[in-house]
């Protein structure tokens, strides 16, 4: 992990502009939301998990994350079938805040087409993207 402006990015993960990360391990991708995302959301109180077996598509909504005040849709950075969801989040949605890249993972997807990964940013590109977005405000 390295830090830029005190928010973390993980070097080998890939990132979507909508602030989801993906860790690819062969044909399996683990997905979550980034430190930047959880920081802006505030305390997460509920995570709407997708169904195991559901199909997800890159760029399409697959669930939602609720904070005290707001609902945020989350978008899948990869296409494929959901093979596992993090049931821990039902009891401890705060894991998304405290451990966005590890314990706060949201779903695991069996990827159909790994060429889609090139549409995503690497950690440096994503960190720069966040910096630019923050500078606008």
């Amino acid at each position, binding site marked *: 992990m390295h830090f830029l402006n005190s928010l973390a990015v993980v070097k080998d993960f890939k990132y979507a*502009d*909508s*602030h*989801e990360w993906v860790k690819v391990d062969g044909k399996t991708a683990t997905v979550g*939301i980034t430190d*930047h*995302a959880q920081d*802006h*959301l*505030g*305390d997460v*109180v*509920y995570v*709407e998990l997708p169904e195991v077996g559901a199909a997800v598509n890159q760029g399409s909504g697959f669930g*939602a*994350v*609720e*904070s*005290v*005040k*707001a*609902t*945020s*849709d*989350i*978008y899948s950075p990869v296409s494929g079938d959901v093979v596992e969801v993090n049931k821990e989040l039902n009891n401890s949605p705060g894991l998304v805040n405290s451990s966005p890249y590890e314990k706060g993972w949201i779903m695991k997807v069996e990827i159909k087409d790994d060429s889609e990964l090139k549409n995503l940013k690497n950690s440096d590109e994503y960190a720069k993207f966040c910096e630019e*977005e923050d500078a*606008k*405000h």
Partner: protein
Amino acid sequence: MRGGGLWQLGQSITRRLAQADKKAVGRRYFASEADQKKTVLYDFHVANGGKMVPFAGWSMPIQYKDSIMESTVNCRQNGSLFDVSHMCGLSLKGKDCVPFLEKLVIADVAALAPGTGTLTVFTNEKGGAIDDSVITKVTDDHIYIVVNAGCRDKDLAHIEAHMKSFKAKGGDVSWNIHDERSLLALQGPLAAPVLQHLTKEDLSKVYFGEFRITDINGALCFITRTGYTGEDGFEISVPSENAVDLAKAILEKSEGKVRLTGLGARDSLRLEAGLCLYGNDMEQHTTPVEAGLNWAIGKRRKAEGGFLGAEVILKQLADGPKVRLVGFTSTGPPPRSHSEIQDEKGTTIGEITSGGFSPCLKKNIAMGYVKSGSHKTGTKAKILVRGKAYDGVVTKKPFVPTKYYKPS
């Protein structure tokens, strides 16, 4: 990640809007930021880590460095200081100010003892709510009124129009809009002890709903023992040139226990206290009866009427209203405004008007209108969030017990 809706728009300064069309909305929004009004505490908020968002034409802090959850819990454990200067304070004066105001509100203003106030509703001809407000009878010829920021123009136009015709008939009433003053709200168990350090007024004798004009930290302030959190506390109207010093003094006297608190936590606190937010839980076409504010209609007013929309309201008091505002607790994701409410069989029975996750209770709380018959505490219901139905149950308000300072 992206969201929609009013709060999310208000939070867009701290949230990322990833999609192109949302970005366009964001840019238009930021271009108008320069048009937002600022209270005299604006720089003070920013210096203290305030995240500023537009709210009812003002740039206000939605939160500071601590999270909305932490702020909300801290208010009830220690205390919170809110800048509510965006709200509009005004004084009605003249020997006929009481009968004048009685035409416009449901309260028994005549029966208020000097130095006491109450929550009331300004009604329209159909009995609907123009705004809710805290009114205080200072003396028989001076009434102090605070109305919502978002309704300022509407309320003032309404009052002014009625004042003109009242005066044309020979009535003695005039007004003064207190734009030279700022409003702070100090809430929580430490509110009274901290404020007592800054005034000679014996606050132990100022009960819930009572009003004083008194020196606080060297400035002549109006204090009302009231608030929007369910906690004990005060709203303090201070001359604007003394507002920052007063805010600093309050925070210092509390040794950091009372924290600057923003609109995000303010909304969580009022929802936990079961209080209506005008624009969500009450609107032009909802009557005070439907909103559960029967208690705010003065006894004499129920018998005599004499306020706008009285015929509609009195009929509802006699027959019962067709819909009622009730509280809910639920499982699953927090219900939000406009979430559909269904009975256990799946028939629509109403709509949520406010909802969220309660930081103090650690569960979902909400308020909504349901058709009469489905409003009793304990009634099971289904609440639809993003197309899925979750279990809900009608729950008594307030959700968190209130701590108003009343004589024993």
